[in-house]
């Protein structure tokens, strides 16, 4: 299996050949192959072989046209978006890909009765219409900047299959288990539940013939076992190599037949406090005390073993909107932390636990709480254990409380918690409306993910402003929004709306026999993952033809 042991001379693209089978490790079985119902990463990984995207992400996470023919043209008021399609797209049943398919897909996504776990938000859209066979026009209620990355970058499904289905009963349609009409680089062959999903090359793929003849997604749920399979040459791609931990990554890196790419992911882990009145973290000075007693860099290193980049604001380094200098950082300063606790009204008692007059009524309130953390996530649990140990110095008694995912969010959604450590995976757009705007407070308002109880009118208005900033080109829009994001990040990190811990740093491993796995800036390979760029799948090839 060992092909090229030395890495000095990169093979040129002229050597690209067709044939062979790509076997990759899928970390859990799909529950459906229906794109509208999919909600897990392994499912989207399977999807990225089968269905085309309208717009995709390039290696630097910029939105680029895929089935679309060029970037959308936007009216000067930012509300009318026109998208043209390539005329070469064909579904596997031979019919051309047209505006009807785009309309069918997006109307179904926008259908409020759609039975799905994945949240599609088409609320900014007023109307969608077919201008001609290859042109679609969107009219929005108001200018909405995330529209391109959130709504237009995504899969397109065939109208012949999904055009007339009942959105409420979509889970049980035949295409959920046997998607016969597809248009991505590979076609669906068969699905053996619990074992594998098989695909074969779509020879009429509009971006050119994919190089592998066959693709097999092998279900290997244990990341360590999958790492061994990669090293042994049983699989050629292990997308969740990072889950095998520092040991697994370093062993894979040491293997001469494996290439490991490590990249900053679109996701973060944070320490989210309940800032509502009467809760232990209701005062900004208390939160600043917490931030000042923690040595973030070394905590993140110890907890993640290098699989996390310390973070202060809620925009991750992988995003175009990231600016390391636009955040407020709290350096380790225990004396300052102690005085902040005093200023916030907490005095440390004889038992080492801080108390204050109970704001909820008579008596005193002790600084005692639980850090809710998901069971089975060792890095988060480790962070919780270290934090719990460190904050004792300033009289905070916080105990790690590992909880099963199925019931993890229930009390949080009811506002009934002290702190939780959670992971958030982000879209291509850095918009943080749902986790930071006070209109998204839960349980105060019906939905949303702003569970902290934090509300700040200035932050709200900046978020609305950022969302409404649409310029004639994508680059101009980004520049204008980035200036606003810098202000947003200052508020979030300064007020500690949430105490950020780290941005995910993920690792993927490939067999050195897989060609055209091109790493981008900073080894960034994220565009290969989930459904962000199906076309990249088509470019991989087997160097030895097997």
């Amino acid at each position, binding site marked *: 299996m060992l092909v090229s042991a030395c890495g000095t001379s990169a093979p040129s693209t002229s050597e690209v050949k067709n044939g062979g089978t790509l076997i990759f490790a899928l970390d859990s079985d799909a529950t459906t192959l229906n794109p509208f119902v999919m909600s897990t990463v392994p499912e989207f990984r399977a999807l990225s072989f089968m269905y085309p995207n309208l717009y995709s992400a390039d290696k630097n996470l910029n939105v680029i046209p895929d089935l679309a023919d060029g970037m959308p043209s936007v009216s000067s008021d930012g509300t009318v978006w026109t998208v043209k399609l390539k005329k070469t797209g064909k579904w596997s049943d031979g019919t051309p890909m047209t505006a009807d398919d785009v309309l069918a897909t997006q109307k179904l996504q926008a259908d409020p009765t759609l039975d799905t776990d994945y949240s599609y938000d088409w609320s900014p859209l007023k109307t969608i219409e077919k201008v001609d066979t290859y042109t679609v026009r969107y009219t929005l209620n108001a200018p909405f900047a995330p529209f391109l990355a959130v709504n237009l970058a995504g899969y397109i499904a065939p109208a012949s299959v999904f055009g007339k289905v009942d959105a409420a009963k979509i889970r049980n349609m035949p295409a959920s288990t046997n998607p016969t009409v597809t248009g991505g680089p590979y076609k669906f062959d068969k699905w053996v539940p619990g074992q594998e999903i098989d695909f074969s090359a779509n020879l009429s793929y509009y971006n050119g013939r994919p190089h592998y003849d066959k693709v097999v997604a092998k279900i290997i749920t244990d990341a360590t076992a999958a790492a061994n399979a990669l090293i042994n040459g049983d699989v050629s791609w292990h997308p969740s190599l990072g889950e095998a931990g*520092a040991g697994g990554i*370093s062993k894979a890196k040491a293997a001469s037949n494996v290439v490991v790419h490590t990249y900053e992911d679109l996701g973060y882990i944070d320490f989210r406090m309940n800032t509502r009145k009467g809760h232990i973290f209701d005062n900004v000075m208390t939160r600043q005390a917490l931030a000042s007693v923690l040595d973030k860099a070394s905590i993140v290193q*110890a907890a993640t073993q290098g699989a996390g980049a310390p973070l202060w604001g809620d925009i991750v380094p992988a995003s175009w909107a990231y600016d390391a200098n636009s955040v407020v950082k709290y350096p380790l300063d225990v004396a300052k932390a102690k005085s902040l606790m005093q200023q916030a009204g907490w005095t440390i008692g004889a038992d080492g636990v801080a108390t204050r007059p109970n704001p909820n009524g008579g008596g005193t309130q002790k600084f005692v709480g639980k850090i809710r953390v998901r*069971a089975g996530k060792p890095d988060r*649990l480790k962070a919780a254990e270290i934090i719990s140990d460190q904050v004792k110095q300033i009289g905070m008694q916080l105990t*790690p409380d*590992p909880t099963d995912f199925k*019931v993890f969010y229930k009390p949080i959604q009811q506002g009934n918690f002290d702190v939780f450590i959670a992971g958030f995976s982000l879209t291509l757009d850095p918009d943080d409306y749902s986790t930071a705007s006070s209109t998204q407070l839960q349980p105060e308002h019906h939905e949303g993910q702003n569970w902290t109880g934090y509300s700040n009118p200035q932050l709200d208005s900046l978020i609305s402003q950022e969302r409404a900033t649409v310029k004639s080109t994508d680059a101009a829009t980004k520049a204008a929004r980035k200036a606003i994001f810098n202000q947003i990040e200052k508020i979030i990190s300064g007020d500690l709306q949430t105490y950020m811990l780290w941005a995910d740093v993920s690792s993927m491993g490939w067999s050195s026999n897989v060609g055209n796995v091109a790493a981008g800036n900073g080894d960034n390979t994220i565009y290969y993952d989930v459904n962000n760029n199906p076309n990249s799948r088509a470019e991989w090839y087997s160097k030895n033809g097997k």
Partner: protein
Amino acid sequence: MAQVPPLPLGPSAGVPGSVPNQLSIETTVQQERDLAQPGVRPDEFGGAAELGFWRLSVIRFLHHRVATGALIILGVIVLAAIVVPIITGDLYRIQDYRHPYKPPFQSLQHIFGTDDLGRDEFARLLRGARVSIMVGVLAVVGYLLIGGTLGALAGYYGGWLDNALMRFTDIIISAPFLLVVIAVTAATGGVRLTTVIIVIAATGWYEIGRLMRAQFLVLREQEFVQAARALGASNTRIILRHILPNALAPIIVSATLGVSGIILLEAALGFLGYSIPPPEPSWGNMLQEFEQYLLDDKTYLVFFPATALVITALCINLVGDGIRDALDPRQR
């Protein structure tokens, strides 16, 4: 110590081929009366001092070298698990997270090295021993209480009660243990050691229950029981004073073996993240935390808890076998 069993008639009467009993019914009644009076020593029953059943068993056990050796090792482990954590105190959770992974056997301060947060592995191992052994013992006590009571009632009274209890046992046997643990953990809002113990006890008692029932079914028809009944002894008295002591031997063996089974089960649960929450260690969650280091040079973090687990379980099983041989020489 060396108490004569409440009814010396019992064991020999029940064993075919044993020396025919020399005692008459009258003596038995006299003995019962004597036993009710404090201060009366067994020797005063008259006749030569006989070696009692239990004392004989102890002698037989001590002749079993492997079992005795296992018992000594087990005693050391249990003693260490009780004593060492008292001496080391909070050492098991004192972190040095900036300098983790001190290798083992390099310094006396951390003889087994330190873990991912720089905590002393030796202190954690023994603290974990406490958890593992405590879960094992408490859950077996639960087995004995639930299984013993239900089995005794079913076996003694028979009839519809027996039927009902045995069908209930069937239901318990078919309960998917892991799912029950996960469901109960979810319903009670988090991972708790008490939850784990209760669930293990509530779902695992059936073996002892069935064993107890079988013993009672046999023993209740024995002559000495009929004699006691003829003398007007109440059901409670017959169950507790006459049948139970004679039914104990196989139960003790089963319970001993049960402890090792539960320790392994706790480890499996800990491995899945359903045992005691941190910073408390148990062998299972120590294994779980360090599974990934199997691919690394930090295998000692897996090696120590795994070895401790295997040695303890093995010793308990050997002791259990020894007890079986000692209590029931026919089964050799």
